[in-house]
């Protein structure tokens, strides 16, 4: 591309962004835009598939057949989300195999929330309610993301996440109105998942590195702190309905602003978990790598078989 036509293409890119229209795969886009999207979509896809592990951990032990079916369907939905998102990333000129390789070798990340263990059945409720709930708060604005394929994938994903959130709430509701043992289990799960859920919105705005450019590009619509506030405002009344106590002594409703003020999570913990120092980092990655390596001979066989079929057809 000549300098002039490059400049013209970038003008049209900026015009599309300014008009709040969608950029499509064939459109010209700045390199940084493409790279940012690839990083973000891949990280999102990785989170979906790593997230299958903490919940998959409870399928075999789900305490009723109805709950088992719902949980299986949920974990399977997350695999589906991974598929749509890898497909969205592939429209930017990368392929799934390379992205998986980046995940397996630690060069790309996934959401740190999945580095916490699921210790009781109530954790399945807490994950649905809080983690899928936080994911919705993060992802609803992405349905208007400037990159078309990502925005469209998000519309589909968000619909399913809201089912998951409701199912999680329902699990906790049943527990919190159940036996004393079940109530204790529900409270314990909220106590453990509250702070990591707040961390899902990323570092505070003051120390967030990628935000400003992403905002200008229409990839990000709201700051981390805004989204965190929105999550707290949405979730605290739901905790009241559940009869569970949010483990934050600083939580107060401010009549004037209509928002809750709350204690910020310990972000040094977030930075540590991102660096690899969380309770399940090693296990999650090792499990993923093992599934991939154990499956290598299967994928090779499928490729070899397809090649033979092509040859026979020729």
């Amino acid at each position, binding site marked *: 591309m000549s300098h002039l036509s490059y400049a013209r293409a970038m003008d049209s890119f900026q015009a599309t962004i300014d008009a709040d229209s969608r950029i499509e795969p064939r459109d010209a886009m700045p390199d940084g835009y493409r790279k940012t999207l690839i990083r973000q979509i891949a990280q999102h896809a990785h989170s979906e598939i790593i997230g299958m592990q903490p919940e998959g951990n409870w*399928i075999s032990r789900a305490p009723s057949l109805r709950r088992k079916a719902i949980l299986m369907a949920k974990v399977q939905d997350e*695999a589906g989300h991974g598929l749509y998102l890898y497909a969205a990333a592939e429209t930017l000129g990368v392929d799934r195999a390379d992205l998986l390789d980046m995940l397996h070798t630690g060069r790309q990340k996934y959401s740190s929330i999945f580095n916490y263990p699921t210790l009781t059945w109530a954790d399945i409720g807490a994950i649905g309610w809080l983690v899928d709930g936080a994911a919705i708060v993060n992802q609803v604005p992405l349905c208007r993301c400037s990159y078309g394929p990502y925005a469209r994938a998000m519309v589909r994903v968000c619909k399913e996440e809201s089912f998951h959130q409701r199912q999680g709430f329902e699990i906790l509701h049943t527990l919190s109105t159940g036996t004393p043992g079940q109530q204790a289990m529900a409270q314990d799960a909220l106590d453990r998942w509250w702070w990591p859920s707040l961390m899902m919105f990323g570092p505070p705005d003051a120390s967030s590195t990628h935000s400003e450019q992403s905002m200008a590009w229409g990839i990000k619509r709201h700051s981390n702190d805004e989204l965190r506030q929105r999550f707290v405002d949405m979730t605290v009344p739901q905790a009241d309905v559940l009869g569970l106590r949010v483990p934050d002594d600083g939580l107060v409703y401010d009549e004037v602003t209509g928002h809750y003020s709350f204690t910020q999570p310990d972000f040094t913990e977030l930075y540590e978990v991102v660096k690899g120092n969380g309770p399940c980092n090693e296990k999650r990655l090792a499990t993923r790598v093992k599934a991939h390596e154990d499956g290598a001979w*299967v994928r*090779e066989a*499928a490729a070899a078989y397809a090649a033979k079929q092509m040859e026979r057809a020729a």
Partner: protein
Amino acid sequence: MSDLFTYALRLGDDALIAAQRMAEWIAAAPQLEEDVALGNIGLDQLGQARSLLQYAGSMDGRTEDDLAYFREEREFLNVQLCELPNGDFAHAMARLLYFASYQHLLYDELRASADETLSGVAGKAVKEVAYHVDHATQWVLRLGDGTSESHRRMQAALDELWPYTAELFESDDLVRRLPVAVDPAGLRDEWERRVLAVIDESTCSRPEASYQHRGGRSGQHTEHMGFLLAELQHVARSHPGATW
């Protein structure tokens, strides 16, 4: 215990235990598409199990969960094929080929049963298991006729699971005297014809006649079953009287 209760339990337990093993593949499959596909298959099996256990339970005032979570190992009536540990992906596909082909023939005939619940469950399930057979068939062909490693693994899986197939077709007084049941002995020839055609096309060789395991239908299981049930039942049993 009525014959009909026992019969519904046999079919329901097969599906339940198969689903429990299938679900172990979720997040461990060779590729993401397969996590989704095996999840679907497991969900179909679990759905069949729930319908059948609900039906059995309706005959003696128990729920599907009473039956799934609060029976002892000796009261489970599934065939041993369903309870064996997963092994590698070739084993998963060999088991699915054997089991779903059996279920397909069974449900197909059960559709004509005079028992409306059984025929209703069968009418829905027969479509689901047709897909399971197809999925397993595609993979047995790919693995059998893929690489030398996949061929070796596919052959090993077909051979190792073959000794657990006779039990599927075991006839007894109950199925002979219960008019709404299907006597599985009558399904054997067609099952062999179909399964062996897939094995032949996959370039694997037909498993040899061998010792055949039995006992599942009378509650005698392999040593694996106790661990499977311990995992399946432990939360429910830790909170007696709780609802979930």
